[in-house]
């Protein structure tokens, strides 16, 4: 039995059609020690009802955070839930306090899903070996051969290397704690609204003492089956954030 607690965070916006796919992909995991946080961000569909149904479906191993009128966009939504993760774990487990170096955060976007029953097990194994950030290969629903993730050579600054930590993104909470939150904000001090993947991961990849890429396809990125329109509509904004984040570099 691993000492690590796996917290999966799912930021949602109008994701009701897909949440059941995520739930099923978690329920089939060989590593069963996980908590799922579903965090809604002002959805206008029935994401809330579906999330409540799924909390029951996964036997209470999930927490649902409804919208509260404050549109966060994915990055602020995720960061808020990471900061809540300790309390959520304490609520779920009776026992000694779990320290942040034993908490693994994984992100599954509301419109994606895991696609490998051993995904969590493989990732936890890497943390057992000392990694502080682990990402895997992924596939696209439209093309199983499509995988943007890959190896990030040792020492190289992730800001100067092409993007290779797309999905499945996981990291230890104590690594996240070291990141100055200014890294998540734009030149005007506002939280990034798009392109959150690089804004979230680049600072941690930069700080990591032991980063690991797993060349096992664990994650399915849904581009057609769930939310094609939204993903294509935001491509331009995502690239603008990416340009800025990479040009600015790491903020101590």
């Amino acid at each position, binding site marked *: 039995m691993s000492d690590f607690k796996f917290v999966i965070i799912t930021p949602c916006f109008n994701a009701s059609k897909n949440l059941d796919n995520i739930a099923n992909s978690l329920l089939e995991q060989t590593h069963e020690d996980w908590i799922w946080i579903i965090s809604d961000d002002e959805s206008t569909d029935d994401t809330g009802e579906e999330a409540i149904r799924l909390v029951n479906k996964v036997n209470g191993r999930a927490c649902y955070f409804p919208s509260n009128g404050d549109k966060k966009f994915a990055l602020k939504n995720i960061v808020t839930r990471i900061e809540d993760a300790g309390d959520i774990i304490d609520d779920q487990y009776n026992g000694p306090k779990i320290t942040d170096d034993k908490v693994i955060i994984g992100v599954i976007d509301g419109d994606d899903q895991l696609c490998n029953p051993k995904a969590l097990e493989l990732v936890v194994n890497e943390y057992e070996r000392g990694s502080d950030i682990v990402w895997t290969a992924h596939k696209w629903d439209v093309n199983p051969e499509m995988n943007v993730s890959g190896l990030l050579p040792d020492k*190289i*600054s992730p800001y100067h*290397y*092409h993007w290779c930590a797309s999905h499945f993104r996981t990291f230890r909470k104590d690594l996240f704690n070291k990141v100055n939150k200014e890294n998540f904000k734009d030149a005007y001090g506002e939280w990034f609204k798009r392109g959150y993947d690089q804004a979230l991961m680049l600072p941690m990849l930069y700080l990591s003492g032991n980063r690991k890429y797993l060349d096992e396809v664990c994650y399915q990125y849904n581009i057609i089956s769930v939310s094609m329109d939204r993903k294509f509509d935001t*491509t*331009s904004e995502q690239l603008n954030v990416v*340009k800025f984040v990479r*040009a600015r570099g790491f903020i101590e």
Partner: protein
Amino acid sequence: MSDYNFVDFSNMTAPQVEIPDSAKVVFVSDYFVGEYSGGAELSNQALIDSSPLEVFSLKSKDVTMELLQRNQTKFWVFSNIGELDINLLPSVATNMEYSIVEYDFKFCKYRSPRKHKDAEGVECDCPTSDFGKLMGFYFNSARSVYFMSEKQAEYVYEAFPFLRVDAKCTVISSLFDQDFFKTVNVLNSKEAERNDKYVVLNSPSWIKGAEDSIKYCEENGLDYDLVFGLDYGKFLEKLSTSKGVVMMPKDWDTCPRMAIEAKLLGCDVRLNDNVLHKDEEWFNTDDMNEVTSYLYMGPSRFWNGVMHDINYAPEVSSYTTSYNCKKSGYPWKESIGSVLPFSKEVVVVDGGSDDGTYEELQEWAEAEPKLKVFQNKVNWGTNESRISDGQQKAMARSLCTSEFCFQIDADEVFHEDDQHKLIDIAKHMPRNVDILCLPVVEYWGTSGKVRADIIPHKERLTRNTPNMTHGIPRQLRQINEAGETYCDWAKSDGCNLIDVNTFDPLPHASFYDGRAEGLRQNSVSDYEQYLNWATSNYPTIYHFSWFNLARKVRSFRDFWQNQWNSTFNKSTDDTAENNIFFDKPWKDVSEEDIAECATKLTCIGPRVCHEKVDYEVDNSAQMVTIQKQPPKVVDGWMKENS
């Protein structure tokens, strides 16, 4: 774009048609009234007659590549183009400013999806065919598109969804001239007695649906008159004395004039669903004033849109970077001041100045809303700053919000005479071009001589495309043992325009071509003539980096020596070997040494200074004189630095 253009026009024959300079708009159609008086031709004529600008009517078959090139600065309107050489469409879409008046469904090779199905037995798949994609490019590149009816527009949006989100489409309906409204008034005022008959157009054209109209009359017990070939005035008179009109076209008719004419003349109008405008608010009313006023304003809706397109001036964000500009003696204020007049905003990213530059920029920004100042501190001249010069530019660029970007360095000044030229060149920039190189006048020494030892263009005017950033191109990126990224020796300054995801260099267009480079390499005097032509015709940047040579040598001592060595992964130790100007370390170089060096550099002429300067090599012949005076804004700085 004058003599140096993006298309090879060398094999063109003389044009058959001359468009007068005075014509501001070229109106293209297969036919014009006089040759054929169909609905499209009558509507076109109503537009042409109501134009606030001089219009030249050009038949589609007469459009040639040369005609397009010669008249690239005019505004073009394309309506029915069945006789246009389809091979010209890519050039039209890429290079011309134009609107489309769409009478049917040109995304389909039959100009009608229903006709397509009748002919081939399958649903129209043209939008995804090569033909449809070409038409999509043609529609996408138009400044505006005018439709005859809302339903027609919807069907076209289904084929080309990008048109729906572009907000450049307007429904103008069929168009009528002033004489028509006068005639309708006269006929209506007569209050002539009407018979009990319905008019049916007995056109032999299958699409007009004469048979169906007759069938409708018979099934509904309507007495009817078959009419065809009447003079237009007689036809209107006939309508004004008839009870109604029956129109049952076989295929979509986007906005048939006869239905409108009958409506205005008080007829009971019976239409089927193929009359696409029949349920529109302006038409589906008993208030004839509403119908009339809507139609009366049709040409204005069109020309207001065209005038907006003609007067459109793209917005440009300028961006630059700064670091201890005061201490370095750059003309940085002149530089920023030279781009402020034509820019929507000027973004400056300061790299951590400690000489007061940043504070002065902030103070300036408080008084000048267009100036947006940010700071991103860099540990310059160290391992941490190997690629920072490009990254600072990338950050500044990422903060630009306009359709176009203009990049300028703190030692460069834009000429005040070229401000309108820059906006104009942006407006007419071919749509397949994202990066345009512009002439750069690089002074060498205070005599006013200009370098001829380097290529005189730089990537400066760009579309603000989301994938474009600054940095080291992929093939020149290297990684040292410490995992630090650096640039191949002297192959790039690390500031190229590249793709943000792949780091691949991005293609550019330029006024400067192989012929010009041949002149530069083989004949300085011919090159001088060429460069004078180029700087007179194109917006030009004036670069003062090597104007005051002593200042430049000092800037190597204080900044650039270490920064270049860092960029190229060389030692930054202060040694005689690392000092490109002197055979001793910088710590031993005096002001007298620098003054002597500057004098020598003036004498031996221009060179690229990344390696030790060989004072025995005489490049003094590699300089030319530019007749055009430098920007006025930099006069004071030049005097101070002379």
